[in-house]
């Protein structure tokens, strides 16, 4: 065998090995969740999704409150994060040489790498700390949404920017040559051209924040009740997994696995959707 063939074989082997290293843990986690959590879901297929959790020893109950809480929190996070992230991304692409765009790019690059728990702590200090908080004086659901939005914004911004940069400059010039204004060019011509890319950006951002627990715990604390007010702590799936999973109670642990399964399926579903959009992304003419 020639040296080149040997090297090729080696690289192919390494590629398969790394695939295995990626696939095995994923399959294993999925398997554990299905086996340990699936049984619990099957035993209470409706109750699990609609009911609130029960104290240990009582038995039964579900994660309905956490699903509801997560929907609220993620909903508000999207409401803040998507427009801000999109506008920032568009600005960075369309005014790419301006000082503001450069600063925004710099800040988002740092924020993307920022430990999410720190984003939580900063949010807590600014918004809801007893001492310095601007909007409340204790853990609150809105603060969690804000922290999640902050985590999502740089991801959305950078992906939206990338999407806009794929648009050939001639398309922009064509729009301006028709007398279109900046905002008409951006929203009526350019945005429709990269709709799929923007959808992908939002989904990637959503997938990133859907599983976060640390920033929620820091800003919102822990709640085992239904969502009540934005200024009170609210429950959420990741925090429920954290609390139930670490508890010594068998039925809580089973529910933690079941909730993990749901969360995993959700995130994989979002990832799958994102990939479909990526494939549909306009490829130019």
């Amino acid at each position, binding site marked *: 065998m020639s040296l080149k063939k040997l090297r090729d074989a080696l690289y192919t082997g390494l590629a398969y090995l790394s695939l295995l290293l990626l696939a095995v843990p994923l399959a294993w986690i999925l398997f554990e969740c299905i086996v340990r959590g699936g049984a619990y879901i099957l035993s209470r297929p409706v109750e699990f999704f609609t009911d609130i959790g029960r104290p240990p020893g009582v038995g039964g109950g579900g994660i309905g409150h956490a699903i509801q809480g997560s929907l609220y929190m993620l909903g508000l996070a999207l409401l803040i994060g998507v427009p801000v992230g999109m506008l920032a991304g568009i600005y960075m692409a369309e005014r790419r*040489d301006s000082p503001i765009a450069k600063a925004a790019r710099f800040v988002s690059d740092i924020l993307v790498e920022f430990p999410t728990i720190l984003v939580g702590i900063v949010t807590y200090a600014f918004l809801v700390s007893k001492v310095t908080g601007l909007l409340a004086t204790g853990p609150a659901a809105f603060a969690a949404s804000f922290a999640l939005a902050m985590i999502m914004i740089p991801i959305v911004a950078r992906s939206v920017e990338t999407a806009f940069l794929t648009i*050939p400059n*001639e*398309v*922009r*010039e*064509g*729009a*301006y*040559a*028709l*007398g*279109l*204004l900046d905002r*008409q060019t951006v929203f*009526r*011509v350019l945005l*429709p*051209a990269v709709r799929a890319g923007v959808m992908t950006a939002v989904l990637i951002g959503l997938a990133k924040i859907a599983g976060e627990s640390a920033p929620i715990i820091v800003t919102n604390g822990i709640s085992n009740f239904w969502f009540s007010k934005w200024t009170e702590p609210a429950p959420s799936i990741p925090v429920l997994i954290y609390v139930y999973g670490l508890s010594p109670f068998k039925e809580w642990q089973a529910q933690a696995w079941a909730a993990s399964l749901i969360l995993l399926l959700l995130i994989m579903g979002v990832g799958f959707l994102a990939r479909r959009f990526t494939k549909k992304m*306009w490829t*130019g*003419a």
Partner: protein
Amino acid sequence: MSDNVAVSVRDLHVSIDKKDILKGISIDFPKNAVTAIIGPSGSGKTMLLRSINRLIELLPRARVSGKVLVRIKNELQDAYALDPSYLRRKVGYVFQKPNPFPHLSILKNMTIGPMLNGIAKGKENLERLAEEKLKEAGLWDEVKDRLHEAAWKLSGGQQQRLCIARALALQPEIILFDEPTTGLDLYNTKRIEELMVRLKEKYTIIAVTHSVDQAGRIADFIAFIYNGKLIEFGSAASVLKSPANELTELFITGRVLDGVTA
């Protein structure tokens, strides 16, 4: 100034990053005529064209000085005092590379400008305008059954004619063409050349071309630009047959290399 002037450029200077691109150009483009701008590549033809409809302002580092007057509603007006959006509607621009909005339908390419500029209102009026202008550009028969297909599906030549129709839909008075037949086949080149000649009845046509032959086929007047300066301007016949300047003669006989400085 003469009623016959559609665009008057006075001592136009353009620089980008301190590099002088146009070095004091003055020229009057006659109304309802085709004026061809010829010159080696890099001599500043595109920048001259873009200074007229202020597309040059998309380059934040470009500096423009001098005066550009454009005849709109039969009155010469300072292009740089007008609302740029209005100016660009009235002074259409056709690019070197066909640039329809590739993801939008053929119809939407036609209607988006008039719709957003408030030139026509309502689906019916917009579609009537689209049809009229596609006919004017000689594209209607080829696209009338596929108006809802994405524009990128058209051939390059059809895309370019769509871009011309799209500009016409804004009811311009002057149309700037930047080497509009670059890379197109003979058939489409011929059709676009004929179209430019036909359009001069209603519009003033200023067309950059790097082909002297093309200038000969379409132009009433020819401006020769070299190294950011206007070297010669006159009727097509006189410039081609008896150029006054030696550089012009060298160029039209194919003996000036691109980018060589005089």
